[in-house]
């Protein structure tokens, strides 16, 4: 260890000077991370701690505030509404994410081959929906889905068909998945595309010399090279799916009997807190959801990690 050696060899004066210098260096380091750490502590760590503390109480409209220990958590683990919601967003994840990531991958590969002529415009075109705020996107799709006067319904009527009711119980999850697909395919494509650009072109040249075509290059070089980026997209998608909130919350005004108060876990927590004033239980529900997300993300990382080691 350098430190102990200098301590033995150096004179006392040199030692203190070094120590001061080291202290200054450390101070500079702290200064650099301070802006992040302050915001992180104040806006993330502290509210989280407070919510955890808060979830151990039960405040009633009549009767005040009492410490209840883990009672809110026991209730959450047995709460059918919460678990129906979690099952629903898991189903959403299983349907929506594979389609979205395959599409994003296909777009990224197509752009990277340089086959597409209007590369920039295409790239931008695919990415633009992500730049549209989710709220606007949902309102727009809500209009498009309209069962009486929406463009799809009108179009179907014009050709003598009846359009499916996109806002009905059976199709709602698919309609929401479509909105999220529209919003986030471009975003995932950009991540994948950026990762592809970092692959050295030497490898492609070598492959071409060996007689590999574009399909072979894509399959044997590019997709393996994208493993890390795909994992990142996957983690984002797990979190995003389980935390689904904006889209169902806005669609609620169009289909209030389909999207109930507990349609997704986040919507449930929101309604518990702001409609039912069950703030403490809402905090516990949020922590349970957080746990599920953590478990899901960890299980995914564990699975991919083991496979890559094999």
């Amino acid at each position, binding site marked *: 260890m350098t430190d102990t050696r200098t301590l033995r060899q150096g004179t006392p004066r040199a030692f203190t000077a070094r120590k001061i210098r080291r202290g200054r260096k450390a101070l500079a380091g702290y200064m650099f991370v301070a802006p992040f750490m302050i915001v992180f502590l104040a806006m993330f760590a502290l509210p989280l701690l407070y919510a955890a503390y808060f979830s151990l109480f039960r405040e*009633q*409209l009549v009767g005040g505030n009492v410490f209840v220990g883990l009672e809110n958590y026991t209730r959450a683990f047995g709460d059918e509404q919460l678990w129906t919601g979690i099952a629903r967003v898991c189903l959403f994840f299983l349907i929506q994410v594979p389609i979205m990531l395959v599409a994003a991958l296909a777009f990224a590969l197509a752009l990277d081959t340089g086959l597409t002529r209007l590369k920039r415009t295409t790239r931008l075109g695919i990415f633009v929906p992500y730049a549209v705020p989710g709220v606007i996107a949902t309102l727009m799709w*809500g209009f498009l889905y309209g069962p*009486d*006067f929406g463009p799809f319904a009108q179009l179907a009527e014009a050709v003598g068909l009846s359009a499916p009711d996109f806002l009905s119980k059976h199709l709602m999850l698919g309609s929401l998945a479509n909105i999220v697909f529209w919003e986030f395919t471009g975003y995932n494509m950009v991540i994948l595309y950026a990762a592809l650009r970092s692959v050295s072109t030497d490898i492609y040249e070598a492959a071409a010399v060996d007689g590999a075509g574009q399909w072979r290059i894509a399959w044997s070089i590019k997709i393996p090279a994208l493993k890390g980026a795909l994992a990142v997209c996957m983690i984002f998608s797990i979190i995003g799916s389980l935390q689904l909130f904006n889209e169902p919350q806005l669609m609620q005004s169009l289909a209030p*009997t389909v999207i109930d108060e507990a349609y997704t876990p986040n919507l449930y927590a929101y309604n518990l807190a702001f409609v039912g004033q*069950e703030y403490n239980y809402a905090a516990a529900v949020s922590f349970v959801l957080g746990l599920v997300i953590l478990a899901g993300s960890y299980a995914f990382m564990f699975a991919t990690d083991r496979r890559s080691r094999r």
Partner: protein
Amino acid sequence: MHPRFSRRSGLAAALAGPLALAACGRHTVDPPANVTQAQIDEAMDKPTELNFWTWVPGIEKEVELFHQAYPKVKVDVVNAGQGNPHYAKLRTALRAGNGAPDIAQLEYQMIQSFVITDDLLDLAPYGAKDIGDQFVEFAWSQVSGANGEVWAIPQDTGPMGMLYREDIFQAHGIDVPATWDDFAAAAAALRAADPEVYLTNFAPSQGAFFAAMLWQAGADPFGGSEGPDLNVDLTSPEAEKVARYWGDLSEQDLIAVDADFNDQWYQALNKGKYATWVAPAWAPTFLQSAAASTSGLWRVAPLPQWEAGQQVSSNWGGSTSAVMATTRNPIAAAVFAQFINTDPKSTATMANEQFLYPPAKAILDDPAFTGQQLEFYGGQEVNGLFAQIGESVHPDFQWAPFQDKVYADFTATVGTAVAEKTDAVAAMEAWQQRTEEYAKYQGFTVRRP
């Protein structure tokens, strides 16, 4: 223990401590028995800033009148959203112990839910106990507490009537229904005559409309509740009659069951999908902009009745101005809440420029208001008709101290049953049970009469 760890957690505790304290111990006003005119004069002569949360567009005009009357008191108007988002923010600020306004707009049905959490200042000692006779009775009874408290000052109301498309009625030779039986018959006749048109729409998430229907039928589900003692009676014969009526109409596909106040619904109004809108006194103005393309085609009639020859109405919507118990300037805030809702110029501006339907008798008796002929309604004196309807609103109807939750449960039970054409009366029982369960969880003693 590792020294670094203890230092870190010590810091967190030090930071979290005051946060937890701030949430519990907040400043609230202890209302005095009486506030003298001298005290009021003194307070109004002191430079003061008040914060007022409201979603009424253009209310700055009334605030300006207040500024002219009390130049030293400055009122900041904040629009924190309409309805639920407004209440969510208000509750958050009140719980946090800071950031709450001095005065906030509250709809009538929300007053009790802020009373139960001790968030409202009783305005009676601040002169409000003497102004009750300036307002229509049903409005004043909704802002009054059981022991003479005045929790808010009425701003506007919504006595229920029926807006209808005269052209559609005439085209199919349908008479304007005077009773609910007539209404059902007209629904069937219209459906047979034109499959594209429904007589009306029942919005499955509009608990406020259903509450108005219960009110008219004589059901008072939470009547007689006081503080922690809560009566819940959503399955009374009167209440079940209402549920059965709308459930039957929907089961026979005689009414539409679309969600309201969204783009789809606005288009439906414009394109004549619904021949009536059973709606309150604020609806005529609202419709003028929401369905502008149908100008001149609409008329207004009284609410259909359960018994022929009767004249009973109810109320949907309308707001009040309430003073938060956390205010640092109770006198100025109380004076402001009363001023904008009682000053003749201010109430006239509200009625004629913001088109808020007035609870103030002086305006309702004023021919300049009641005699206005609205072009959108073929020159009908709509305000005058609603002024008459207002007199037939029964003053006894009580709200739950968690009415927003009651509405949410309505959507999940009765609203869904009507929309999906399942048993609406059975859904009333489900609504009752959800409400009871929730009330018990919140610590109320529940009684089912």
